[in-house]
């Protein structure tokens, strides 16, 4: 603490250590505090005294430590600290010792990242056959490649063709009963900016969104960092298979209001993350009715819509909004290709809103996070290749289903149950039987043991604000079949060592 530095001189004086140091310390501290409060801008930095102008430049630049350290904003400070959520801690630990079935069989197996590599073979084949053409599709008068088709400024919200392609694709993978208007759509550089831009448009600093928990840990960063919008968890329980209820929403809302918090909307994922639930039409209807009654927004993050493998059909909130007696302008959808098409690196996100002012504002905000034109060209080609898309999506769903079965079965053999799920790239696992104490502390201890002893990174429910301890999200779509017995064996050993 910088205040200590000038105190050294005081402390070195006579008198007992107590009298000599503590009292002057306190007095000095309180004096600084008092002066700090009284002082008006510029910054109350005790080192930034006005220095006399000097014609000798070198003397100023070689002054050493007497120039104050320049500061960053208070908004930025929390970002500079290392992450404290187990979600990020786990991801970082895997990087130090990543499992590889050939070169590092004792490494940490990654179950903490919702990514799928199950259909890379299909994607790779498409890219090798079509990438060049999709990028260099536009030619100039002489028939040669016209670089301006990918190099120049284009509308930041995305070319009309790419929005049309997305509208069509989304309609198809979401059951075919909903249609999307390209003019209500804005294309972003990923799902992360999509969520943030919506938050900026729908809520002011200090306002809040209700969010059914457990929820995706990344939302804390995506929503809160720069917008200053709060997230209020609405706790869901295993007895409901972690499905949100209107009474829980009611309760959360009234508690928020009592605290003086202004709730601007409800944010939820469907299929849900981390549980993997598909919300029923009735539930969606109920949420929208609730939002209508309270006059707040609804944001439905449907980024896993195409990763549905169970028997329940996926229904988009857009479909529910279009039916019935709702003010659609409060409904906003988030989508992207990171999960369904395994292209997180490309940075592909969609904001779809029924509110024209939101679309208008979001379009203008796209200058900060738009999708590059060459990538748009690739996606126009990819998404319009309906034959390939059909083949791909069918294989994607089937392979997730197969992998899910193997993984859940493996856990079942160990007496470890999973929540019922029908979508997403993960399962929600009940490891409470392995806890030494049925508490958050017990869960975090298990998380650490899983990481350091079993060498498995699974995301603990605490990171997802789950109110019941012992639940872990395990992503299985980057695993080969032969990895699964390895995982089960490790968990078995851990379980046995806990009980012995």
């Amino acid at each position, binding site marked *: 603490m910088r205040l200590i530095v000038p105190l050294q001189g005081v402390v070195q004086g006579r008198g007992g250590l107590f009298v000599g140091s503590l009292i002057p310390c306190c007095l000095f501290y309180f004096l600084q505090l008092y002066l700090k409060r009284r002082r008006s*801008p*510029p910054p109350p*930095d005790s080192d*930034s005294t*006005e220095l006399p102008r000097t014609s000798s430049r070198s003397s*100023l*630049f*070689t002054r*050493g430590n007497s*120039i*104050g*350290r*320049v500061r*960053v*904003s208070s*908004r*930025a400070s929390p*970002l500079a600290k290392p992450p404290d959520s187990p979600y990020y801690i786990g991801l970082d630990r895997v990087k130090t010792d990543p499992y590889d079935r050939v070169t590092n069989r004792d490494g940490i197996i990654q179950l903490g990242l919702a990514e799928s*590599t199950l259909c890379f073979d299909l*994607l*790779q084949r498409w890219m090798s056959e079509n*990438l*060049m053409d999709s990028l*260099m599709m536009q030619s100039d008068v002489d028939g040669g*490649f016209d*670089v*301006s088709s*990918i*190099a120049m400024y284009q509308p930041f919200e995305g070319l009309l063709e790419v929005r049309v392609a997305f509208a069509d694709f989304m309609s198809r993978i979401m059951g075919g009963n909903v249609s999307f208007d390209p003019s209500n759509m804005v294309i972003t*550089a*990923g799902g*992360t900016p999509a969520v*943030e831009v919506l938050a*900026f448009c*729908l809520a*002011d600093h200090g306002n809040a969104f209700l969010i059914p928990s457990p929820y995706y840990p990344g939302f804390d960063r995506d929503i809160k960092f*720069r917008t200053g919008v709060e997230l209020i968890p609405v706790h869901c329980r295993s007895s409901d298979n972690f499905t949100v209820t209107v009474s829980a929403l009611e309760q959360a809302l009234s508690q928020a209001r009592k605290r003086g918090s202004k709730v601007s909307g409800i944010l939820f994922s469907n299929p849900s993350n981390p549980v993997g639930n598909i919300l029923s039409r009735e539930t969606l209807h109920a949420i929208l009715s609730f939002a209508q009654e309270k*006059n*707040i*927004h609804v944001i439905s993050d449907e980024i896993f819509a195409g990763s549905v493998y169970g028997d329940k059909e996926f229904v988009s909130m857009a479909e529910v909004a279009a039916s019935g007696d709702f*003010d659609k302008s*409060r409904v906003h959808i988030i989508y992207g290709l990171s999960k369904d098409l*395994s292209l*997180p*690196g*490309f*940075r592909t996100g969609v904001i779809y809103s029924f*509110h024209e002012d*939101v679309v208008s*504002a979001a379009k*203008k*905000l796209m*200058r*900060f*996070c*738009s999708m*590059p*034109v*060459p990538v748009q060209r*690739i996606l126009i080609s990819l998404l319009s290749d309906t034959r390939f898309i059909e083949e791909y999506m069918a294989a994607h769903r089937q392979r997730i289903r197969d992998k899910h079965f193997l993984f859940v079965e493996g856990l079942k053999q160990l007496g470890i149950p999973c929540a019922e799920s029908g979508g997403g790239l993960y399962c929600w696992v009940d490891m409470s039987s392995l806890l030494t104490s049925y508490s958050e502390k017990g869960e975090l201890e298990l998380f650490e043991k899983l990481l350091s002893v079993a060498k498995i990174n699974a995301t603990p429910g605490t990171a997802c604000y789950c109110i019941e301890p012992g639940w872990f999200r395990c992503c299985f779509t980057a695993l080969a079949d032969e990895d699964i017995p390895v995982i089960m064996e490790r968990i078995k050993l851990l379980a046995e060592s806990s009980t012995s």
Partner: protein
Amino acid sequence: MGLPLMINNDDNNNNKVELSRVAVSDTHGEDSPYFAGWKAYDENPYDESHNPSGVIQMGLAENQVSFDLLESYLEKKNPEGSLWESKGSRGFRENALFQDYHGLKTFRQAMASFMEKIRGGKARFDPDRIVLTAGATAANELLTFILANPNDALLVPTPYYPGFDRDLRWRTGVRIVPIHCDSSNHFQITPEALETAYETARDANIRVRGVLITNPSNPLGATVQKKALEDLLDFCVRKNIHLVSDEIYSGSVFNASEFTSVAEIVENIDDVSVKERVHIVYSLSKDLGLPGFRVGTIYSYNDNVVRTARRMSSFTLVSSQTQHMLASMLSDEEFTEKYIRINRERLRRRYETIVEGLKKEGIECLKGNAGLFCWMNLGFLLNTNTKEGELELWDVILKELKLNISPGSSCHCSEFGWFRVCFANMSEKTLEIALKRIHEFMDRRRKVLNC
């Protein structure tokens, strides 16, 4: 007794869901003449064959003069396979999955090397200090979020790029306090102007967090002198504030020796507390003519800022595909050396063409040496030496000459009658047509004045 209130019984209106202040604010600035001219262009765009009397866009700083160089590079057959494609399936897999906010190491190395080349090797760039963003617009906004709190201010010399009003202020809530520059010294920043701006902020109880300059300047089309940069750094050290140098046009300086980057000045300083207040913004949109690729960078000498910017860049990542495509291009020494050299030369010739063409009509421009535009003085044509007078003239130029140029007032210029005219986003033929229209206009005017 007042008039009876008209009560709106429409339930929908009473129950209309609210939007945020950010969403409804007009800080996006798209209602200013800077953008109004673009609308006129969109409605009636000039086309050599199909619409020769349409509006010529001279309000967009885009570089098309060296497209042919890009095309021939991108098209060429490479023995290892096309530059676009990843090397084999492992390459593709990495590409598709890669979303690490550190950015591809090879790409950062390529960017660092490219930035060094532009500065003729007079400064070194450490690839680990490069943070990637989806364009310089995002880089400037991100830096503002990191360096300043809402209601704090950045000092920006006038005239400045109109987009700053939006990019630096809209979501961040940060203010801009102008550093007034004028033609008496070619709009260079003076220590007095800096002090005045700082005092103005302080008197209004606004905390200044930094100075943001564009070097070479937009809209002036001129480099900032070395001494001015040193004075500026001096000032920032004394006030203990940051210095952001947006060097997005650094590769578009006609004569490389005339550009001094703030990096060169910092290169010779060891004192961390001086260095760590300096941040540079760069992008491939202007120098390389690739605005569609959305590639920007923040280069910071401050470890804390690098770390924080990197994490915050999650909101504006550069696509792995783009990084991959450009990594080889930018590390190709032969290509980059040739491109930079030829591009500079072509821009210089364009600049000379337009400045000489204007001079023939009695129109003077600020002596420029960089960028994709010139700073033209039409003060002598104003009916009144006011903002209204300037906008009147701008409107005439747009409606009669069908030229979209940018009025100085939208750049917050303290003198009236200055206009920014872009010349690199069109063919030479189109530039000639634009000059012809100006010639005809001035001719008509001379005839009117003479009779």
